[in-house]
């Protein structure tokens, strides 16, 4: 195990070390100790590398991740795994706002709760939240799957495109153009797979599915009151 101490090494050096190690594609394991809420830590990784961060992180941890596996043994600040392309990012604690924002692929696994705007503008990423999510989550979400084992806050899926939302608990309110949809066998299969990947103890049958009504896809003046 390679250990990088964030109290002794600069952020630049930590990220350079991790990025170079990822580029070698040797699947090495790194541990970062004393992260002390550092911003932009373990960002831009492009290759199979395993990074464990022993503590909480600031903004944009694991931003734009490709192929790497990043685990935060603590909570993550705003924008964790933003614009992630692939790989797995796991948060053992809670995640702040905009978790997985604009993510294109990979799995973001949040063991605690996620704050507001989780999965905003997501473009293909899979997000599993073991706890609850805050308001305006999946706002303008385009592609991918958001699975919530707990409850969802206000305006879930507002102005949603083709992303699929699965919630086990209650939904405080649905956003504009977001509707509940039938759960079909292919959705149960998808859910079972995502829950298994995330190590979540839940049955696919317990979830309800939400998606776009597709009423706002082309501008219509009669819908102006929806906004």
């Amino acid at each position: 195990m390679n250990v990088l101490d964030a109290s002794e090494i600069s952020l630049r050096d930590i990220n350079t070390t991790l990025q170079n190690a990822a580029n070698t594609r040797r699947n090495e394991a790194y541990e970062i100790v004393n992260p002390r809420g550092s911003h932009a830590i373990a960002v831009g990784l492009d290759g199979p590398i395993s990074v464990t961060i022993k503590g909480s992180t600031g903004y944009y941890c694991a931003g734009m991740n490709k192929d790497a596996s990043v685990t935060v043994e603590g909570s993550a600040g705003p924008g964790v795994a933003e614009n992630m392309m692939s790989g797995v990012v796991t948060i053992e604690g809670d995640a702040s706002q905009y978790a997985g924002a604009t993510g294109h692929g990979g799995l973001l696994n949040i063991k605690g709760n996620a704050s507001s705007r989780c999965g905003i503008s997501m473009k293909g990423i899979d997000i599993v939240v073991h706890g609850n999510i805050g308001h305006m989550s999946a706002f303008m979400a385009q592609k991918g799957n958001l699975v919530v084992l707990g409850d969802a806050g206000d305006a879930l899926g507002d102005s949603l495109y083709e992303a699929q939302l699965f919630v086990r608990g209650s939904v405080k309110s649905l956003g504009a153009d977001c509707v509940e949809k039938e759960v079909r066998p292919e959705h149960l299969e998808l859910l079972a797979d995502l829950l298994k990947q995330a190590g979540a103890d839940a049955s696919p049958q317990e979830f309800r599915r939400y998606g776009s009504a597709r009423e706002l896809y082309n501008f219509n003046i009669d819908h102006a009151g929806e906004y």
Partner: protein
Amino acid sequence: MDKTPHTDPIQSWTFSRETNSEIRRAAASGIYDIRGGGAKRRVPHFDDLLFLGASISRYPLEGYREKCETSVTLGTRFAKKPIELKIPITIAGMSFGALSGQAKEALGRGATLAGTSTTTGDGGMTPEERGHSEKLVYQYLPSRYGMNPDDLRRADAIEVVVGQGAKPGGGGMLLGQKITERVAGMRDLPVGIDQRSACRHPDWTGPDDLEIKILELREITNWEKPIYIKIGGARPYYDTALAIKAGADVVVLDGMQGGTAATQDVFIEHVGQPTLACIRPAVQALQDLGMHREVQLVVSGGIRNGADVAKALALGADAVAIGTAALVALGDNDPKWEEDYKALGTTHGAYDDWHEGRDPAGITTQDPVLASRLDPVEGGRLLRNYLNVMTLECQTLARACGKSHVHNLEPEDLCALTMEAAAMAQVPLAGTDWYPGKPGF
């Protein structure tokens, strides 16, 4: 028969024919007017400024003989690899999607031939654009359509777009008729639906967050790329100051004449400030923070010729960016397509329904037949010529003011023709040593 003379029919200034036609259009359609381009209203502009030229107290440089440099380096503050341009004129961000692939290629070719940069837009970077652009600025927009770390690293600079002059505070809309399979695929959305571009970024709000966002972008790209921040002409002093505080290498300031692919006419004409009014406050912010020339200022919005370039530089800009003018150079609104313009209910020079994708010039369209009207090689040649002419014009004016580099132009070289322009540019009204707001008067 009544022989009393009649007054000639008088059209109302308030209810002009254009105004009334818009009222009738709104009444019939029930929706606001959407169009492309920038503000069409007359606002104080560079035309309202004049260069004084050399005289006994200033001696000029010999045209065609004595050197007048035009190079500019952008991104000297933090970036390991600043961008070096031969001319102080860049191509502004315009998206593949709003523009055809051929038009984007032509912009890349022309910019490269002239020794300058071009810029992506909402919708990501295409291989053709990257391939034909020696220096390519990659826009980081609220929608993040097509955003990925590989293109980020392939770029020569990154432009974080906070706003644009045509619509400070507004997002965008690419209507479904322009969303072909390729455009949709690049944006991760279904074919044929209207694509909204968000008005603010999804994962940061305010200057403190922006500072961290810039840190992330730098960490992902090894601190190599210059980071530009593009702002619309809303509050240029404070926005420039905050962009500097957030860590920008370059501030791109776009006034209200700057174009857009599509937004509401009411937004274009009624939000934001004229380009002329934005430059001095932005330069003041740079000077107050000791960052003038260390953080470069790129000005856009209604730049049309070398005189505009020279005046913008004299007011303190390091470079300018052109968008609409570059499209005109490629053939936008060319009279040779007049029959087609008439068929669309408009005329050359006035065509602005860029969002509908039926551009006779084949520039603002995804229709393959129309798009094939633009030869990207010839378009690149036209753009290069135009950029060269602008540069020569700018040099001519700079030499006349005795400057061996276009960056040596200064406000003292200018006077204003109108009170408004004098106030905005903070240069004396012609024939006086005074401008409105000048300290001591």
